[in-house]
């Protein structure tokens, strides 16, 4: 009886402890990120690692999404007699939601696991302690650079993912019914304005913050050897994906209110 009562209490306690530790970690990283010396060399390495190396995967995921959207939307819109809205449906779906969220989830899978496993491995082999013992702030060198790189690269990757999605959406439609790219773009972007393009794209900077922060946090607090490294990689992906989806709910509402 006692154990059944303590189990939920422990879970709630652990939950709040995790958030508290995450808050402290974020504060340390934020303070390290804005005080010199700045680690520009490491930041450029991470921009390449997180940005350039995620590009093929994001482009492929975006392209596949565009094709699927095109096929599904054609089927649905034809049933309701609104086939002429197909380009606009693809453009708005890709730019408003599918492009940003697919990019966020793909990057949380690739980069979240990579950062989580790398930092966890460094933690259990005392490499992070060695950095600290060399009088270098590991929050600045390891965490701040990765988080800033995630924040900067997510919107750029989203633009690339959107572009691939739209291109392949057009290709999928053009294969069924002749339509030039020019016509597709003109028809799709008709009536679109600033509020349709920029807020959904730049909300992914928040996804970048979430992915970088959670992966670095899970990696740098790892304990327990190889098993701990595995747990850190898994939890980095699971938690960052979960929080990206939850943040998307809040951000979509926020965008609809402030950028109607």
């Amino acid at each position, binding site marked *: 009886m006692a154990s059944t009562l303590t189990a939920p209490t422990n879970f709630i306690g652990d939950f709040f402890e995790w958030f508290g530790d995450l808050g402290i970690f974020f504060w*340390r990283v934020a303070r390290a990120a804005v005080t010199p010396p700045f680690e520009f060399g490491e930041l450029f390495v991470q921009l390449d690692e997180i940005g350039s190396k995620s590009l093929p995967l994001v482009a492929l995921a975006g392209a596949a999404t565009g094709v699927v959207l095109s096929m599904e939307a054609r089927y649905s819109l034809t049933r309701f007699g609104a086939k002429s809205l197909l380009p606009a449906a693809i453009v708005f779906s890709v730019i408003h939601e599918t492009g940003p969220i697919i990019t966020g989830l793909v990057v949380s899978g690739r980069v979240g696991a990579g950062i989580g496993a790398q930092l966890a491995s460094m933690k259990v*082999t*005392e*490499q992070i302690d*060695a950095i*600290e013992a*060399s*009088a*270098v702030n590991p929050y600045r060198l390891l965490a701040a650079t990765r988080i800033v790189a995630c924040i900067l690269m997510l919107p750029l990757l989203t633009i690339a993912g959107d572009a691939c999605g739209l291109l392949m959406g057009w290709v999928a439609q053009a294969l069924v019914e002749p339509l030039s790219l020019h016509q597709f773009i003109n028809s799709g972007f008709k009536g679109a304005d600033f509020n349709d393009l920029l807020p959904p794209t730049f909300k992914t900077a928040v996804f970048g913050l979430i992915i970088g922060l959670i992966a670095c946090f899970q990696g740098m607090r790892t304990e327990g050897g190889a098993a701990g490294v595995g747990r850190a990689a898994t939890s980095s992906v699971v938690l960052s994906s979960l929080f990206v989806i939850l943040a998307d709910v809040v951000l979509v509402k926020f965008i609809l209110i402030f950028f109607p």
Partner: protein
Amino acid sequence: MNTADQIALNPPDTANRANAPVISVEDLHKSFGPQKVLNGLSLNVNRGETLAILGRSGTGKSVSLRIIIGLEKPDSGSVRIHGQEITGLSLDELGEIRKKMGFLFQHAALYDSLTVEQNVAFPLLHHKQEMSGNERSERARQLLTEVGLDGQYDKMPSDISGGMQKRAGLARALALEPDILLLDEPTAGLDPISSGEINELVLKLQQEHHMASIVVTHDLHSAKTISNRLALLDKGNVVIEGSFEELQGSDIEFVKEFLKYS
């Protein structure tokens, strides 16, 4: 004003600092959960002196070393480096103190994504911005030659033996010309010849650089070879401190037992 300037402008009691031991630890307590690891540990180390900390596994030897360099916070007690209390310092303030400290980890803790030379140049890259890339490389190679690793510059840590990793770790610890050297089990896991070579190397470096050193070890032979004083720990506190001969002459049962099985 940066942290270094603040520390330089606000030295706590400069006159006392000059006469103070380089490392001074007083009444240190540390627990991990219910397990009490350090229970009132006190010790001092002066310039040019090497203290070996001996004891059974789990008696707090490595933890005391990690507290001295600030990688762990004590529950209570004082750690003074050159007379300056370090237990309440922030990470960046500690960084200024750590520039004068070298630490050799038990498993060397070399950065596995960097070559041996880049590992040694790492502290220089971050703290000697006035040095050019060539100068840093030259200094790293000079240190590696000093520890007997000439020609191994471009190898990755995974491609060299445990003994060589310890040597590279030692070279990295010496990169910023520290006046304090902390060695955590420098000969653990090494064959007798490699252990002997590491002992001779540490002894040579201490004679050349006149650092204040603390060596944590299980290896009594190593402790005898490289230290001036030995401190035997049990249950988180010093049981006896003195020369090897003083330990041998002790009537304390634990000391006798430890020496018998060493």
